[in-house]
């Protein structure tokens, strides 16, 4: 039972407001190691804001963020990679003029080595095998030397994931990895994420609107609406929760449905 283990990531009573607008209110979540945990909710529910707090791009007004027992609430975002926290973005944040290989190499920035020979190496040899494997797993083999801006959207999404993997993360934060992907690509993503969690023991927290993916891969699902948590449980539990149905479909529809 993974739920009983100490959480790898726990967010406690997080509150963040922009001016008078409270985007997230008193939100807590515990992500158990080795599990896939989905954060869902209607648009504007505060999911990406929560992500930005965890990856230290926003400073929360109140609450704590613990990673592996360590309080990371006040750490700079440049410390995240070193801790083993990687993320992808809803709207892509790639290095557009760099090739696929170089993008992944920047992801491995912390592992490039500090010796003079490693520093002066365009492609550090000790990372070659690892990067090759990441490229192969994410299906980017045909595009190694393609500039990121010349990839189609689906492959750009996969490149963000590949770059995040190069960080050698223990926790992977994925903001809508399946948005804009075709069914075939979603199937690849489904297999890859499951594989990463089950085989490599990665912990994944994802925000996602594609329910087919969420229901298929998640161990647990947390539902956010208007900045507060309205439900949490296994995919089956959440699916049949009346509050969730109401949040997604509206009250009247819920009564008839």
């Amino acid at each position, binding site marked *: 039972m993974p739920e009983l283990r100490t959480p790898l990531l726990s967010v406690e009573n997080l509150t963040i407001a922009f001016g008078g607008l409270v985007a997230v209110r008193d939100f807590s979540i515990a992500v158990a190691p080795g599990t896939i945990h989905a954060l869902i909710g209607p648009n504007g529910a505060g999911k990406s804001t929560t992500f930005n707090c965890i990856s230290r791009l926003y400073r929360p007004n109140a609450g704590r963020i613990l990673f592996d027992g360590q309080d990371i609430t006040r750490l700079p975002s*440049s410390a995240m*990679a070193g801790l083993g926290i990687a993320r992808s973005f809803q709207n892509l944040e790639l290095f*557009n003029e*760099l090739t696929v290989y170089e993008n992944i*190499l920047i992801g491995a920035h912390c592992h490039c080595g500090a010796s003079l020979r490693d520093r*002066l*190496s*365009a492609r550090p040899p000790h990372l070659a095998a690892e990067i090759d494997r990441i490229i192969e797993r994410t299906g980017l083999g045909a595009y190694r030397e393609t500039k990121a801006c010349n990839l189609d959207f689906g492959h750009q999404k996969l490149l963000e994931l590949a770059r995040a993997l190069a960080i050698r993360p223990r926790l992977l934060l994925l903001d809508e990895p399946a948005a804009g992907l075709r069914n075939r690509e979603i199937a690849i993503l489904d297999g890859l994420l499951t594989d990463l969690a089950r085989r490599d023991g990665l912990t994944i927290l994802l925000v996602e609107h594609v329910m087919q993916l969420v229901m298929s891969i998640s161990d647990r699902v947390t539902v956010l609406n208007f900045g507060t948590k309205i439900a949490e449980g296994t995919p089956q539990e959440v699916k049949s929760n009346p509050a969730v149905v109401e949040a997604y479909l509206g009250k009247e529809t819920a009564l008839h449905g």
Partner: protein
Amino acid sequence: MDKDLILLFLQQGIVSGMVVGSVYALLALSIVMIFKTSEVPNFAQGEIFMAAGYCALFLLVFQATPVWLAVPLTLVVAFAGAALFRRVVLTQVSRASGSPVNLVIATLGLSYVLKGLVRRTGFGDTPRSFPALVSTDGVMIGQASITRLDVAIFLTALAVMAFLFCLFAYTKVGRAMRAVGMNPKAARLMGVDLQRIHMLVWGLSAVVSAIAALLISPKILMTAEMGGIVTMAFAAAIVGGFTSLPGAVVGGFVIGIAENLVGLFISSRAIVVAPFVAIMLVLIVRPQGLFGGRVAIKKV
């Protein structure tokens, strides 16, 4: 004008233009390097160039420091000064207000501070001449006549460009610099220390400007106003697209050659206009500059 004279002027204009253009290119590189990572046009670049020139002059002439020591010392001072300015002043300014305008004003402030400092020392009161480190004997290239010093200027500038290219293309820190220029938010999440990269870029940019000063100073009279040459470097950067390093190099040569051809064929009094005519022509034909990439189309 007969054909032989035209041919002679063309050769002389292009060769002299390449020499002075290589110095413009170095200054344009220092401007573009900072602009790409900090999004700030550094209006103090000319004064960094000038102050480095005076630092070398002070060491070589007034302290009689040997060349092998004076040159590295000048570069170290330039690096440290610029890195410190980025770390102490610009970090504070951007913390106080995110607006890039304030950063630009801060660079203007630096330019006045440096000019004031040079005047304060008294060295900037009268025009001074910088000792040539290479002989000024004549050399013929085709029919064009230049000096050994000119050849040394050109070759040194090329070597600096090659060094920069290798740094950006083949090293870990160069890769991180390029990543910061493209997407600072993502670079930070990959563990790149933005503060450190910014300091390194500013330091490196100042070193390149200092080299430009060491190269060109023997050919001009040094005054506290010599930083005005940076206008040509800005012109070169704009011609090249302002965000492209190869563009800055090509832009430098274009401006240098245009200046010399105009001086020879039209009038030496028309030289000051030449870079701006070049800018206008390039911007009419390619609004994004020669190497500026595609014009961004934003979805609304």
